[in-house]
């Protein structure tokens, strides 16, 4: 069973349904026991970093996630959920993240000078490292992005996309995975990625 962490941020309807669609059992939950018993964890997130980090901390879910990831349980952060994996973010102030992957989250205009912000729409993936959740994908496959901040990775960069420069599309460090785009909104390609994550051993 995959636990989709519910900490009051974002719309989890599509994510839960896309996992249903690929036949992966999942539960949207903030319950510690259920998350501890899950085989895998997805950390979703839409909205502002500071608010999300605060909600994770207040609920104690931050420590639970760190502990579960530390035990080797596969963890997938999506969009803001990926950004939360890093050390800190500079979105409206400076906020600490989970620190599972070295790096920081910075305003996208630093890379995408002159381009429209948010980076919204379908953009192609370029792989720079082997990542089992991209099994069966092809170089250049399109996925759906919506974000105004980007992760400047200190380690673990596994895919990029081009938006005025190389933008982090995915990271991986051991059992900790993150994608900046929304696999649950990326059609067939996105479902393939979720399926590969669900089938990780």
């Amino acid at each position, binding site marked *: 069973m995959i636990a989709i962490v519910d900490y009051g941020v974002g*719309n989890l*309807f*599509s994510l839960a*349904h*896309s996992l*249903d*669609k690929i036949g992966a059992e999942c539960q949207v939950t903030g319950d510690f026991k259920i998350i501890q018993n899950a085989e895998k964890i997805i950390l979703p997130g*839409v*909205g*502002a970093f500071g608010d999300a980090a605060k909600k994770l901390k207040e609920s104690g879910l931050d420590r639970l996630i760190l502990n579960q990831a530390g035990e080797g349980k596969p963890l997938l952060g999506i969009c803001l959920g990926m950004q939360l994996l890093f050390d800190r973010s500079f979105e409206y102030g400076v906020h600490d993240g989970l620190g599972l992957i070295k790096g920081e989250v910075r305003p996208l205009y630093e890379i995408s000078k002159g381009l*429209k*912000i*948010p*980076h*919204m*729409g*379908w*953009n*192609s993936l370029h792989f720079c490292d082997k990542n089992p959740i991209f099994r069966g994908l092809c170089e250049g496959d*399109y996925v*759906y992005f*919506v*974000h*105004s901040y980007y992760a400047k990775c200190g380690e673990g960069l596994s895919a990029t996309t*081009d*938006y005025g420069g190389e933008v982090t599309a995915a990271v991986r460090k051991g059992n900790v995975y993150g994608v900046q785009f*929304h696999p*649950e*909104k*990326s*059609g067939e390609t*996105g*479902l393939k990625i979720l399926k590969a994550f669900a089938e990780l051993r």
Partner: protein
Amino acid sequence: MLAKRIIPCLDVKDGRVVKGKNFVGLQDVDDPIKLASFYSECGADELVFYDITASAEGRALFCEVLKGVASKVFIPLTVGGGINTLDDFDRVLKCGADKVSVNSGAIANPDLIKNAAEKYGNQCVVLSMDVKKEGNCYKVYSKGGRIRTDIDAVEWAIFGQNSGAGEIVLNSIDTDGVKNGFDLPMLEAVCNAVNIPVIASGGAGSISHFVELFKSVNADAGLGASVFHYRQFSIKELKNELKKNGIEVRL
């Protein structure tokens, strides 16, 4: 590179997709879930749903339709029609919408854009504008294009962006339903004034109209309704032609 998006628009009334023809009456087109799945499989990059029912029953039915679509179709869904309050945002987001478009509701209460952006994030708030040319400028209309306001379209778009809208849908009243091409001068005027994505709407009648749109204006997406509903051409054919013309698309 970021692909230009092709977006079919589905007007939903009493649980069915309908389409106005020649500005008189509404024709029944199809079942929304069936049509949405079809478009998604054929390469649509996103779907826009407008709830054009007025009754409470129609609204409840719309939520059921939306839930049905969102549980079957895994591309972004934008929902508009009758969005006047944060409660309206809540209602459609809970049914699986990814973005919510405001039009008359934001004209009546401009703070709606800012309040919604603060609560749900900029990416969630789409400012939809119905625009008509008047002399040398463009005016915004409300209530589905029926009521003229004194608002200048370029100024309204800038206000929307500064208030936190993450995207703009620009619908030209002058070209809507005419099928003679998009309203390029109007689109250009607004696109040049903002730095958020713009979806062009109104006037698509052929594949070449989309080619012309993306070649001449910095729009991010093209919206179409009847050209797709009545299968004048397929999304695949359209995208192949765009690609041939050097325009980046998701095939």
